[in-house]
Structures are given as C-alpha cells and as structure tokens.
C-alpha cells in the first residue's frame, strides 16, 4: 500500500515539475510550486518525518507562495518568450543528470539500517533523550539540545536572509 502511495506521489511530483517548466503564465507556475511543496510534505508524512512535513507545508506551501505572489505583483505575470531549444543546453543537462544518478549508486539503499547516518550518533541520542533531556519528542531534543549549535546557526541564517531582503528592498517605500 505504501509502495502505491509513494509511486503516485512521486509521479504527481514529476508531472507538477514538468508543468512548472512548460507554463508561460507565472501566476499558474507559482500555484503549482505550492502544490509541489504540499506533495513533498505528504511524502515526508509517509516517511514518518512529521516535523519536517509540518515545516514544508507551512513554509513551502504557505509563506513562499505568498511571497512569490507578492514578487509577481512587483514584476509581471507572463514570462517573456524564451529562445528555442539549444543542443548544447540539452547536452549539459543530460550529462549533469547522468552524473548525479551515477553518484546516487554509491549511496546506501533507501531505509538501510546500516547506513552511516543511523550507526553514528543517532542511537546515542535516541537512547539518551528520555533519561538526559526528559522530553518525548526526540526531534526537539536533538534539534534544541544535542545539536543546539546547528540550530543557533540556522536561526542566524534566517536572520541574515531577512537583513539581506531589507537591504535590497527595505528602502523602496521611502525612495
């Protein structure tokens, strides 16, 4: 059953991505990007990664869609006609894609319990969460306590992104 759901969701993702590339109407493309995020969130739920699914649904399908619509209001709704297909571009894309697929052959199999990510520090965190931190959601204890430095970095990445947007667009209203 899970296999069927995964296949359907991944097929819908591919269809959505193809449609985004083909559409000239940017308004419709933005809507499809939101749908793409929602499909990704559903895939995360199937992988039991509910915290990530939550973030993807809120950020990807919610806020980014609004921000892209606001950006469209500042620019335009239609994409200018692109130049025709180029053989060089196609060759570069195919070569890069083939290299990426070839690279995945070295990676551990999907869900492999012996993958490096599952045998390094993850068991230590899962065993210690209840006795050392004492909260039931292991994701929060890893994110906020065991990996507190990383999360501090993430917060300042978001802060820096906000400062960057303010520096570029913040003064527009006054000028």
């Amino acid at each position, binding site marked *: 059953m899970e296999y069927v759901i995964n296949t359907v969701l991944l097929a819908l993702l591919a269809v959505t991505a193809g449609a985004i590339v083909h559409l000239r109407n940017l308004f419709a493309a933005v809507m499809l990007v939101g749908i793409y995020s929602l499909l990704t969130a559903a895939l995360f739920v199937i992988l039991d990664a509910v915290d990530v699914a939550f973030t993807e649904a809120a*950020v990807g399908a*919610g*806020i980014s869609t609004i921000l892209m619509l606001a950006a469209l209001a500042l620019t335009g709704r239609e994409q200018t006609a692109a130049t025709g297909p180029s053989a060089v571009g196609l060759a570069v894309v195919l070569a890069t894609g083939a290299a990426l697929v070839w690279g995945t052959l070295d990676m551990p199999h999907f869900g492999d319990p012996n993958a490096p990510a599952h045998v390094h520090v993850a068991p230590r965190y899962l065993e210690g969460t209840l006795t050392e931190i004492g*909260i039931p959601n292991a994701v*929060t204890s890893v994110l906020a306590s065991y990996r507190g430095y990383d999360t501090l970095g993430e917060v300042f990445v978001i*802060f820096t992104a*906000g400062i960057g947007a303010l520096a570029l*667009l913040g003064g527009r209203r006054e000028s």
Partner: protein
Amino acid sequence: MRHHHVLHVVAKMVIPLILLFALYVQFHGDFGPGGGFQAGVIFAAGLILYGLVFGVDRLRRTVPPGVVRGLAAAGGLLYAGVGVAGMVLGGAYLDYGVLLPDPMAGQHLGILLIELGVGVTVAAVMTSLFYCFAG
C-alpha cells in the same frame, strides 16, 4: 480587498485561531510535532493574512516594521544569551543542564527559551519579508 465582506468576516474569525494554533505549536513542540520554526511561520501567516485582507498599511500600524526588525534580532539574542547564561553558571555554551539545580528541569527551561527565540526570529523575519515585497 477592502469591500469584500465575506473575506473580512471569515478572516476575523480565522486569524485568532491561526495565532492561537501558532502558540500551541510553539509550546507543545516538546511533546508533539512542532517547535519554533513551524510556530514562527504560522504566526507570520496569521499576520500576513491580516495584511492581505485589511491592507498592508493597517498591518503596518498594528505591527510596526521597526518593532518587527527589533524582534528579529531579539530572538537570536535570546538564543545566544541562553548559551552565555549556561557559561556564566559554570557549564559549556548552550549546555542547559546547569540553568536550574535539577539538570532535567534545566534542559526543559533551556529548550523552552531557545525555541521561543527561534519562533520570535522566524515570525519577525517572515513578516519583514512580507513588508519588503508588499511595499
């Protein structure tokens, strides 16, 4: 959208629920899915909905851009400050166990405070981005 009565009425009913849900996600993150990142985004979504339905200028009067910018910095400083507090109390940077006499209660307090910092910064930055793009 100033004359869409249906939108106004529905938004007035929904926005408080969105903000309340954001607070639930913020403070229930220890026990279920959620945490500062998600809560911040949901809170900002409530404010942005208000701005979309009632006009950005009204949102600007309710939540002044200067205050939002200050909050974006304050959240990060709260996070970093909890780390410094741990050092002052004799532990390592971002070691919450030393914040209270009981290490586990200290962990709970530390996680609550840094998640609050994350939530405040994320909500403020998202609202700032909306101000930037919505003009």
